[in-house]
């Protein structure tokens, strides 16, 4: 920025409209991602966006950044209407969104990474001296010369340094609106502190700042105003000093699914899956158990380590230590085929990449986990295969013209059902469902809820990972909450509230560092 900090004290609001979002809506197939959102972000203020996974924060950022075009509504900046076909046009207008994983060119140093695309030139060659003078001036001004050596190569940068490079790119091109998407998720406390200093300074220089985070405490420290989204709608915009953590959690939650959920089951005492002291690259000493006939919900924010936990138990990801028991018998699982042989099934989160062979038929996909059992002397008994696959395809009401249909040609909900049919045919003792309802329509969701209920009723143990809190609360007999590679809490499903779960899921790292906060983190004090 060209203006010295002292000329723009942030306490005096500048009478300029800044970024105005008016009536923005955006729909994707099967979901209304944003619904008539209107909001202002003024120069010299920090507005935080808060919401559960899938509340619409990312969609809104992508519209601001020009990645998506809104179906309805307008954006204006300082009174001028904006309509971006792509992120480059947004950059030119002075809008920058800093994502968690900025694009850094690995084989190029910090200085050239910052000026990528606009390197100063002299006679066809890069003017290295001018480049270094400029970069040094920028880094000195914000006090980053020590943290971000400009000769460092792109692939040597830490996550924090990568974000700094991206922010420096924005500053250099005279940014007027700066949005940060979960910037602190991979930063240390010290780096967070430094980032906050930078963000405050940019605000004081008159930049309009949007700050997206799950960490309520951070937001209350940093933001001037807080905007809360839920199911694509803007629920509230309040000045940060007027809000408490409890207020925020209460505003974020509140969807009701009781109409589509039902629960009738008899949890037994038999433990079908027990994991003890699992430690891995992603986890610290995680222990949990699943009973026969029980649905055990795993709640937590994206990145808390739930999917990784499932994969470690299933043998897809390596573990450093810890044991897994099936039916109270210690089993050794080194690869997924071991887990399947022990009676564990895993329906992955990303069904297209990890669940299905898209170019093969419904039949082949449905029978994939039971090929051995269907074969005699390695010859597949085709009649048996058709009967088995057909039975589950019909039971799950997979809408497909025939068993020979290529799975890739089915809709998302039906694809998910094919994955489930595969595991039902395998008749496991424990079934791990990782986000089984992500990206599928409401009708198919209800069918899958029914199915989970049915399965538990028949004595299967279900490990149910979901980022959709209402469905976790509605279906689970017991809930583990994960946060940052640990289990931060456990509670019975009936009686659990979104507030309690969210408080545990968001117990942020500030509280982890401080044992006194740790004990205060659980939700006792929160209204429910």
């Amino acid at each position, binding site marked *: 920025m060209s203006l010295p900090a002292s000329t723009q004290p942030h306490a005096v609001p500048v009478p300029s409209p800044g970024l105005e979002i008016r009536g923005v809506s955006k729909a994707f197939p099967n979901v209304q991602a944003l619904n008539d959102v209107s909001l202002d972000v003024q120069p010299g203020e920090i507005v935080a966006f808060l919401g559960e996974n899938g509340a619409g924060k990312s969609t809104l950022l992508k519209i601001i950044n020009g990645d998506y075009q809104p179906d309805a509504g307008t954006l204006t900046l300082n009174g001028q209407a904006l309509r971006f076909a792509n992120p480059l046009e947004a950059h030119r207008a002075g809008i920058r969104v800093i994502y968690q994983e900025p694009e850094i060119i690995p084989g190029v140093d910090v200085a050239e990474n910052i000026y990528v695309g606009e390197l100063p030139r002299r006679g066809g060659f890069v003017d290295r001296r001018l480049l270094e003078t400029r970069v040094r001036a920028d880094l000195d001004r914000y006090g980053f010369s020590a943290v971000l050596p400009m000769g460092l190569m792109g692939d040597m940068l830490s996550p924090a340094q990568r974000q700094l490079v991206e922010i420096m790119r924005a500053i250099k091109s005279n940014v007027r609106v700066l949005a940060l998407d979960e910037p602190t998720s991979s930063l240390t406390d010290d780096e967070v502190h430094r980032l906050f200093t930078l963000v405050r300074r940019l605000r004081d220089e008159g930049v309009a700042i949007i700050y997206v985070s799950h960490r309520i405490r951070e937001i209350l420290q940093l933001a001037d105003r807080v905007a809360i989204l839920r199911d694509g709608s803007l629920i509230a915009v309040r000045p940060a000093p007027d809000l408490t953590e409890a207020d925020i959690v209460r505003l974020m939650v509140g969807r009701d699914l009781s109409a589509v959920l039902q629960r009738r089951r008899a949890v037994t005492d038999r433990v079908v899956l027990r994991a003890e002291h699992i430690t891995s690259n992603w986890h610290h000493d995680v222990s949990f158990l699943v009973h026969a006939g029980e649905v055990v919900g795993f709640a937590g924010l994206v990145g808390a380590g739930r999917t990784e936990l499932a994969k470690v138990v299933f043998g897809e990801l390596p573990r450093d230590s810890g044991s897994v028991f099936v039916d109270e018998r210690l089993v050794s699982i080194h690869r*997924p*085929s071991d887990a399947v*042989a022990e009676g564990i099934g895993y329906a992955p989160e990303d069904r297209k*990449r990890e669940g299905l062979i898209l170019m*093969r038929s419904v039949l082949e996909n449905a029978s994939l*986990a039971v090929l051995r059992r269907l074969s005699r002397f*390695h010859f597949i008994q085709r009649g048996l295969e058709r009967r088995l696959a057909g039975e589950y395809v019909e039971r799950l009401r997979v809408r497909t013209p025939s068993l020979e249909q290529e799975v890739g040609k089915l*809709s*998302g909900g039906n694809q998910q059902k094919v994955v489930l049919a595969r595991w039902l045919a395998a008749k496991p003792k424990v079934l791990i469902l990782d986000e089984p309802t992500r990206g599928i329509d409401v009708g198919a969701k209800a069918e899958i809820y029914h199915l989970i209920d049915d399965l538990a009723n028949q004595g299967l143990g279900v490990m149910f990972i979901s980022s959709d809190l209402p469905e976790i609360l509605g279906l689970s007999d017991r809930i583990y909450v994960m946060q940052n590679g640990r289990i931060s809490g456990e509670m019975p499903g009936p009686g659990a509230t979104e507030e309690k779960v969210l408080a545990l899921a968001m117990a942020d790292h500030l509280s982890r560092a401080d044992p006194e906060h740790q004990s205060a983190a659980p939700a006792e004090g929160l209204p429910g």
Partner: protein
Amino acid sequence: MSEARAGDVDLPATPPISPRRTALARVASILRPMVRFIGAENLSLVIVLAIEIAVIVSQTKFFLGQQNLLNSLGQNIAVLGVLAVGESMVIIAGALDISVGSIAGIAGVAAALVVTGTGSMPLGLLAGILAGICAGLVNGSIVAFLRVNPIIATLGTFAAFRGIAFLIAPNGYPVGVGTQPDFTWLGSGRILGSASFVGIPIILIILILVAIVGHVLLRYTDFGRSIYALGGNATAARLAGINLSRVRLGMYVFSGIAAGLAGVLLAARTTSGSPLNGQGMELQAITAVFLGGAATTGGKGTVVGTILAVLILGILSNGMNLLGVQQYWQDVATGMLLVTGVAVAQFRALRSERARTRIASRG
């Protein structure tokens, strides 16, 4: 599931049935099992083959002679066919085996050495196949356990195996087997010959047997299913509980066996176990598999398609020989055929991809 399947829809279900429709239905009921065997995706290959034959037959009367069909053509495509069936397995699994020509070289030398030492054709055959199994185990282990990219792994063994073929040959010289009629019978013998019939070449019968084994393995066994799954989406296959290391090892062993057998046949046909045998044939085999409709990314392809492609390539070369076209033109034609064939397949895949996204966006 209800019994009505998409394939049955075109059959007239309700009276009145006109005589024309029943005749059509009868033709359809004869054709359907044939189409099912060949595979709908291979129909374009059949059409190409038919056009090719029609063009050649219109130009020369020699093509349809027994001598040409069974000897020149039948014997010439057999070695390539056996190699290509083995290669199909690996390519459908999304990998590649560049070393098959070199394996054939080792197997030929090994078989020739054993045959000249013992005088026993079965022992020679066995030696060649064993050499193929060992080579396949080496390839498979490198890919499955050392996790080396298949192209790199077999590019390495492509060179190494050729070196080994020279090392085991005495002073690097070819081992002549002209004095072993039992053994050369594998390459140029015939059965069922008579005054009016030249007989069916043994080598062609072996190709047919190998093709049947390959087809059955791929289509009817859990191993074959695992190969399609591995090629279609390795992560999904692994997460469905398939032991991928075992599949990778198995497919390279199969490819090694086929290459070993091809090496034996080549030595028997040329009456010489030369360490140079099979040079360049890996590329012809790979060409045939891709022309036969296998996807470069894996997950698609059939033995029937590969055999059809081997026929197309063999007939192309045979026909051009009969017509006196220079060898260089044959190479140009083979290259163009592969590129055109794959380009057409890509175009069709793109079209079906578009159809798929249309369905997806409709929800």
